[in-house]
């Protein structure tokens, strides 16, 4: 099962995703880190710039990824009750 690395940016709290060479606000920019995830967390944690680093399980989906839990789908898109703020990671009604 693919795994993605995510966290929250220190300065703003924004949800961000590891793209392989940086961080993006968009889920579908993320790359699967799979077995390398723990090593990345070990690399980034001491830098203290990203909070709540975590690996989440996803499935491949058209255009990118679909997180397996409702919680992570909400994190990726934004509040399901405010579609005006939704990021284009997934359709809001697909949460």
């Amino acid at each position, binding site marked *: 099962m693919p795994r993605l690395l995510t966290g*929250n940016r*220190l*300065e*703003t*709290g*924004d*949800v961000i995703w590891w793209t392989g060479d940086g961080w993006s606000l968009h889920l579908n920019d993320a790359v699967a880190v799979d077995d390398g995830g723990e090593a990345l967390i070990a690399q980034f944690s001491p*830098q*203290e*710039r990203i*909070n*709540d680093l975590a690996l989440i399980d996803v499935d491949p989906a058209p255009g990118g990824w679909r997180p*397996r*839990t*409702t*919680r992570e789908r*909400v*994190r990726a898109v*934004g*509040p*399901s*009750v*405010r579609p005006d*703020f939704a990021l284009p990671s997934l359709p809001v009604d697909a949460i």
Partner: protein
Amino acid sequence: MYRYDEYDQAIVDARVAEFRDQVARRLNNEISEEAFKPLRLMNGLYLQLHAYMLRVAIPYGTLDSRQLRMLAHIARRYDRGYGHFTTRQNIQYNWIKLEETPDLLADLASVEMHAFQTSGNCIRNISSDQFAAAAADEIADPRPYAELLRQWSTLHPEFSFLPRKFKIAVTGSATDRAAIQLHDIGLQLVHGPGGEIGLKVLVGGGMGRTPMLAHVIREFLPVADYLGYMEAILRVYNRHGRRDNIYKARIKILVNDLGPAEFAAQVEAEWAQLKPLGLDPPPSELARIAAHFAPPVLAADAPVDIDLSNPEFANWVAVNTHPHKVPGHAIVTISLKAPGEIPGDASADQMDLIADLAQAHAGDEIRVTHAQNLVLPHVRRDALFTIWQALHAAGLATANLDRASDIISCPGLDYCTLANARSIPIAQKLAVRLARQEADLGELKIKISGCINGCGHHHAGHVGILGVDRKGEENYQLLLGGSGAEDASLARILGPGFDEDGIVAAVDKVIGRYMTLRAGPDERFLDTYRRVGAEPFKEAVYG
């Protein structure tokens, strides 16, 4: 309205400066997140699913127009144009940036507000009756007593690291609009045998994982002694409350383990030790504070009869206003529960409008209710139509107070890291579905929490809904029979849970069965449930 003295303002200003320094050091990596996290939480700043969330304290739910306009300004300047009023009379902002928080807190401090003690294991915002100083049934305004508690509990060195968070509510009426039986301490103003005012003291109530109703440990406490008595309660709790298990750390567990009588005896013994120390302030201090809360001068000859020929207006007056203790006046509740909208959310523009109305028509006061609505406490009846027209134009004239679409809902999994399931979409679906028949249903309090912590007060709902996690998917339990009012009771789970559509259908079935069972149109759902029990509803839902 209480106004800060130089001590209050100095405390808040110093705290803003201190946090500004802490934030700067964190952003420069001079302190770790592990060290910084408790510091930001002490200032009400949480990290939620999408961003930082700031919870701002609104002491006893009272604001003036200047403060509400500042809350609107903060929504515009630092958030995304709205705020969320909570079940403890606070406001939360959902899209805060850490780097902007010190400036935000400085803006708040400029109107005598702050965000500290809205998180952590300390004494939280003191809550109270939203109808204080206006209700015809109150013994006295409870807010001076709440304000003295606020001052006593602010940065109290002995009670800043309690076993767990601690919530106190104060009311001046026998009609309980502050849910005092569901707080760690509930205080009710009562008359003593000589007619003097004192306090009935309840301890050990709460919702969450282990819901319990509070026990009365003292029927009458003289006003002059109440702060020392609070100190004694907190000392007993601080000494014996459990710190080894977060789920057993609230005072309700201690009261239950010791038994209310033994707990009360320990408090009395502690109080006896404290009393000679003279901790209670002199009566002049309470009088000084009380003078700040003098109600506006209201014309006793204001007209009682008003033109109710507009049926929509007349319905709003009937549903959303209460009699004021001064004839010719009313207490207005502004519903933040238009069906389909997010319960408790208000836009910056709506806040500004309500501030304008309060300044023009309501003695410059606004109250926040624990049911996530706003109140204008002192309104001439002959101003009601003007107010209603302005509210109507802003989408704020929904006439649904205490009805089926007036649903309490926590932010749930749409925002909250603790949540297991979304609450708001359930509230929206139910409100839209039930709005058409709610006038016929009468009082029906639906309360929804997205996790076991119970911020949506599901255990106190006539109909309660609890969101749980089932293998990563949302599931909802249905509870019936709760009340947070003077007839308090804890709702009980009816049976197995449901998915999102299933819970809405299940509530529909419960209401359908109620309509066939009720003794008459005046028998509330809660009374029918108490009369017939759970079985008929279980049969209706599960077949």
